[in-house]
């Protein structure tokens, strides 16, 4: 069991003033067995009218609201304390949709060739590990080489991408093997950007595997949301009136809550 302090902030700048801005945020740590939200604060700028928390179809917490008045930037910040304890995870049934391809996770012939050559065998977790290991070793991590609409097949063809692409490819290949697999967007101990990894379901439990870093997830990983692929998990979606381009900066920080206390002399 560990306690983690986290903060997550995003600022969006518009090239011109916008109005009638409706948005949806999906960036709140999940409050589930194994990952308890001990405390959390959430602030927005500018003032949001009629903001509400609710849950989406995958059980993720979402926040929807509007900013009516003219504005040229928007910021939101979430911070708090999370208790992580993987031994608390509870039995759950997987939604059957996690076994079938979604828009960004269709497999293709190229992946089938690789799966055949890997001769994956054993339990679903064993197979998933073999797939993750292959992706980790053969894919090049290259920011900017792909975008949010890049499919698993496209990234696989290019042999490069970012964590999101690594996750999509792994999900696509797992599904080709009939394994339940889902996309996780989250944050991990450290500073910088958000991360994405994969969970594979076996015998009633979800197991986290990180194909980008080539490891299993541990208690330093905090889940923000889950879905079939990135399309189900965008941190923010918005629509507004105004002819403006937007640029976005994201900064997250996760650290152990207790700094090492000096030992008594």
């Amino acid at each position, binding site marked *: 069991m560990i306690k983690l302090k986290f903060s997550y902030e995003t600022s969006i700048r518009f090239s011109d003033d916008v109005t009638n801005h*409706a948005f949806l945020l999906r960036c709140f740590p999940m409050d589930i067995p194994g990952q308890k939200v001990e405390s959390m604060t959430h602030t927005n700028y500018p003032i949001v009218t009629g903001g509400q928390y609710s849950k989406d179809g995958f059980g993720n917490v979402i926040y929807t609201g509007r900013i009516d008045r003219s504005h040229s930037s928007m910021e939101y910040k979430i911070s708090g304390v999370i208790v992580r304890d993987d031994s608390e995870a509870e039995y759950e049934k997987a939604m059957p949709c996690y076994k079938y391809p979604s828009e960004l996770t269709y497999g293709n012939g190229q992946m089938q060739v690789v799966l055949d050559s890997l001769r994956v065998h054993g339990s679903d977790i064993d197979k998933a590990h073999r797939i993750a290991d292959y992706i980790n070793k053969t894919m090049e991590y290259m920011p900017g080489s792909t975008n949010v609409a890049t499919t698993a097949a496209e990234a696989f063809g290019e042999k490069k991408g970012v964590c999101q692409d690594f996750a999509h490819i792994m999900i696509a290949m797992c599904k080709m093997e009939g394994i339940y697999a889902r996309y996780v967007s989250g944050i991990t101990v450290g500073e910088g950007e958000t991360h994405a990894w994969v969970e594979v379901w076996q015998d009633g439990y979800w197991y986290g595997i990180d194909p980008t870093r080539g490891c299993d997830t541990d208690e330093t990983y905090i889940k923000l949301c889950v879905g*079939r692929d990135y399309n189900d998990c965008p941190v923010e979606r918005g629509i507004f009136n105004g002819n403006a381009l937007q640029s976005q900066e994201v900064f997250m920080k996760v650290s152990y809550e207790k700094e090492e206390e000096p030992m008594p002399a």
Partner: protein
Amino acid sequence: MDRLLSHKDQINTQMARYGVKFGIYKNGEFLERLFPFDPIPRKISATDYEKLEKGLIQRVNALNVFLTDIYGAKKILGDGIIPEEFIYRSPGYLAALENYTPPKEIYSHISGIDLVLGKDDEWYILEDNLRIPSGASYPLIARSLCRKCSPDTFRNNGVVDNRNYGNLLSDTMNNVNTGGINVIFTPGRFNAAYFEHSFLAEQSGAVLAENSDIYVENNRVYYRSSNGPVRVGAIYRRISDEYLDPLTFRADSLIGIPGLIAAYRAGNVAIINAPGNGVADDKGIYYFVPKMIRYYLDEEPILSNAPTYLPYYEEDLKYTLERFDDLVIKDVAEAGGYGVVFGKDLSGTEREEFIARIIAQPRRFISQEIIDFQDLPILDGEGVIDRKADLRAFVLSGSTTKVWPSGLTRFSRNPDSFVVNSSQGGGFKDTWIMSH
């Protein structure tokens, strides 16, 4: 009756003046055309209608239970009645609607069920339309024009009055309304069915609104009236699922209502018909509807499907390939009469390629026996010609499920065409349910 028939041209002129038009998108172009009316009515006898009515109510009730099950407990999958992939590979399935049940467990409030009358005098279901079935306004307005031209015809012939559609519609909306006004939500005047949207608003007393009239705040939906915001309790939306809410579905939709799905899931508004219904009306699921009726209602289906085969099952694939020339093959992902192929019309490489596609992706196709359905007489100049015709029956699920005693009878333009979809040309007739 002769009096009515002699008014064919006036009625069509009146309809054109009212703007009773039908628009279609073809090759990226928007075409608007008149939907020609033929004054010879299709008559359905009282005894025939009684069976139809029972069968349609049974079918729609089963489909509503099915949708509640699919987005909830999924028992029919667990019990192996329907293979999972027919759900999760269907583009109509929307995971965003999982773990939520709409008010009163009604998903398909307004169902358009297409049937044909076989030469054996049996009705066969062709397809279920549970998303946004259109067309109720055409027979409604045609009837009212006919009534003006020839009032006696309706007095003397024992035709069941169909003017209750507006009331049925408002009852259906009121039944699930979560508090607030009823709205008919239209993408605007460029939509193929805009005439119908405005007409139905008038008939049902609902407010006709476009997306700039509606907003969501505090997970509640509001209409911007001239007197300030008014709560909306039920939305009869006439735009398809993918454009409904840019925060949940297609982000580039400029005709949707941002935040609508969150408000809906919070129980603060009813959406008519429910998003996600596409999973229940695709051509692959059609095959399973009789099984659903037995499974959920423990009843025998009153109305028959056209004999249908699923190449997904090896035995059916074999049959489909053996009897290719006698069958009609449909791509389950296509609608509106597109993706329908008669085996006998294909030859050479076209045929080989099509067969290869079926073998490669059997789940994507169904094959059906060609039903020899009855022709209906159509007035043509001074004479009468015969054309194939179908019937779209409208079933409304409010506090109870009711069939509107009327319907849209469509006929094909070409004598040899079996496709009677309004997107493919052709015209329509009034449908008379007889009181005896």
